[in-house]
């Protein structure tokens, strides 16, 4: 089976192809890249201003399967990911029950088979996410877990300390969501002028930065390796920047909505914007973008969190946290105009893959095709019926988005989005 992609712009930070190229893929392997390929093939793909890049990876999605399939199940989630141009997703373990043993990892991997988006599950750091005993990390890693996280449940210092030490034996990736709710009580929004004038309970920035400092001390002490997920404050960015320059083995990510929106959205009490960590000030958002540019923050993910209307269309205090985003991750990222197109793509492809030890999927002759096919500049309004996810909790409905996905190659197999 020979497929040729006609007249592609190849987007890559180490791009050696300046002009548009034809790309020949033979039985899933990239066989030839040349300005003009005219040999007989089985299928020709020609699209308006076709761009290709190494396949995208959304490293944090919640697919609610098992447990809350009414909001999302693995297959609807993977279909949404495909529509978003992902060739791989990292699935959070906060399902019901939580992904805490080998058979649950295998359930996700088996159920995902036959779908063209690769499933990379995370497992819980503690047994059943109870915060008490370490889960069987070695066994889980062998079964396919790419990292260990209790998602948004705070970790006690002692547990994190033992996990950092224990995981060194087998290069397990430990993940911390830096949020301490014990000091200030439960809150929902950034502490500042908006929390004061809306009366909504706040999560001060220090709830994040204190935890980061503690975690960094533990990394220093254990000489371990830690990934921070969901950084939202300028203080957090600065702490990580310093720690990296000191040589600590840490990485970090940021959720897309924290790069786009700010606390301003809270004045309208719109629960669609209720997310954890909360949307913070404009200066926090700017610091996060700066952190992406200088490599302090390694990558961007969607934190795709499906919620049904019964949990969102209620009073703000009672609304659930979260926005869906795997399908619109690229379009949202396109709003960050201070980054070049190839920088934006790196943030959702090569960079997260490197952090979690996934194979290099750069575009080279002789490699199995792992590509996303897209157009970065088409503008199109997002309609509710275009949303593939079972849940529709996104503020983007009705907005004109920039960028369209045409399809993917994953493990050499083509999927075109109609």
């Amino acid at each position, binding site marked *: 089976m020979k497929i040729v992609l006609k007249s592609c712009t190849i987007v890559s930070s180490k791009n050696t192809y300046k002009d548009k190229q034809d790309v020949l893929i033979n039985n899933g392997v990239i066989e030839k890249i040349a300005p003009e390929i005219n040999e007989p093939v089985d299928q020709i793909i020609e699209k308006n201003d076709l761009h290709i890049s190494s396949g995208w990876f959304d490293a944090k999605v919640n697919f609610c399967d098992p447990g809350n399939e009414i909001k999302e199940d693995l297959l609807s989630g993977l279909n949404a990911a495909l529509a978003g141009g992902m060739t791989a997703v990292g699935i959070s373990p906060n399902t019901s029950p939580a992904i805490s043993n080998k058979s649950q990892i295998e359930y996700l991997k088996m159920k995902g088979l036959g779908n063209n988006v690769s499933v990379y599950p995370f497992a819980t750091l503690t047994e059943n996410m109870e915060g008490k005993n370490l889960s069987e990390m070695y066994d889980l890693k062998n079964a396919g877990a790419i990292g260990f996280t209790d998602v948004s449940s705070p970790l006690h210092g002692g547990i994190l300390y033992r996990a950092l030490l224990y995981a060194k034996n087998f290069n397990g990736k430990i993940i911390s969501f830096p949020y301490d709710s014990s000091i200030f*009580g*439960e809150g929902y929004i950034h*502490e*500042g*002028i908006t*929390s*004061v*004038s*809306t*009366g*909504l*309970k706040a999560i*001060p920035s220090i709830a994040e930065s204190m935890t980061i400092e503690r975690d960094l001390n533990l990394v220093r002490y254990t000489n371990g390796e830690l990934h921070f997920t969901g950084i939202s404050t300028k203080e957090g960015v600065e702490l990580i920047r310093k720690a990296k320059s000191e040589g600590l083995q840490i990485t970090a990510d940021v959720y897309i909505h924290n790069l786009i929106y700010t606390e301003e959205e809270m004045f*309208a*009490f719109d629960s669609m914007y209720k997310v954890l960590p909360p949307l913070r000030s404009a200066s926090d958002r700017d610091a996060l973008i700066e952190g992406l540019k200088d490599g302090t923050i390694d990558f961007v993910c969607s934190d795709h969190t499906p919620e049904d209307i*019964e949990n969102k*269309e*209620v*009073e*703000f*205090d*009672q609304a659930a946290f979260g926005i869906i985003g795997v399908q619109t991750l690229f379009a949202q990222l396109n709003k960050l105009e201070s980054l070049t197109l190839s920088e934006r793509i790196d943030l959702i492809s090569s960079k997260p893959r490197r952090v979690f030890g996934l194979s290099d999927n750069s575009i080279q002759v002789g490699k199995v095709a792992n590509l996303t096919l897209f157009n970065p500049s088409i503008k199109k309004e997002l309609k509710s019926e275009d949303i593939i996810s079972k849940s529709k909790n996104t503020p983007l409905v009705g907005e004109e988005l920039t960028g369209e996905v045409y399809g993917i190659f994953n493990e050499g197999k083509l999927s075109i989005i109609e």
Partner: protein
Amino acid sequence: MNNLSVKHLIGIKDLTKEDIELIFQTADSFKQVINRPIKKVPSLRDITIANLFFENSTRTRLSFELAEKRLSADVVNFSAASSSVKKGETLIDTVNNILAMKVDLVVMRHPNPGAAKFLSERIDATVVNAGDGTHEHPTQALLDAYSIREQLGTDFKGKKVVIVGDIKHSRVALSNIFCLQKLGAEVMVCGPTTLIPKHIHELGVKVEHNLKKALEWCDVANMLRIQLERQDIQFFPSLREYSMQFGLTKELLDSLGKEIIVMHPGPINRGVEISSDVADSKQSIILQQVENGVAVRMAVIYLLAAQINR
């Protein structure tokens, strides 16, 4: 101008200075009405009002109900424990059930900030916020400012008001700040450091933690009720210790060398925020506030009802 700029009364934040002054002028005539032998006007004979209280309240509900009845509206009351949502029925369902009985205006108290705004965006009826969690309590602020105006005159410029107590959990404080600032007064907040939000100064208010200094500065002191029910963690060791630092006593009042006006939104914890002899002194206008509450609420409901198509 004879119309408010808003369709609902969600918060003072949404009102203009002209709106507030219009409410005061209207309240002036209703205050005359409620002091006549026949305390009623027929203005809202064709209007049905539902008072929905998802949080306990005695005097606010009573004040609204009296205001509505003196405007000749038909009134229904609905009280539910704050846990009604936990019982399974959502706020929207509850309210839509009541609206199906053809109600024109809803007065709602609710424990969650933003609940009144949430409701106003989703139902057809006019909404009056009677307190939404720690957000706003606009009619309380209006009646407080109206009471100050009665004492000090219509020009608020340069008038100094201190709000004392639990600022962090107080919707009364927030609405008062917005209202007094719009009218041109200067506002200070005073209370234990644990009960003053860190960013409150960004609203343009002064912050003071010493009651005597605050009182020396002000023309009016509004002593808030300590609301233990709205605190999920302990912010000060005991009520006794609170009143040692922030309780207003006769001795303290007399030491000021000037007469200030003392207010309290009620119900008073005698001996905590305010001692009995202060509460009952002639400097205290606590009962005038209650009387004005009815007149101001009549004005608000009258002006909002004027915008309903009928």
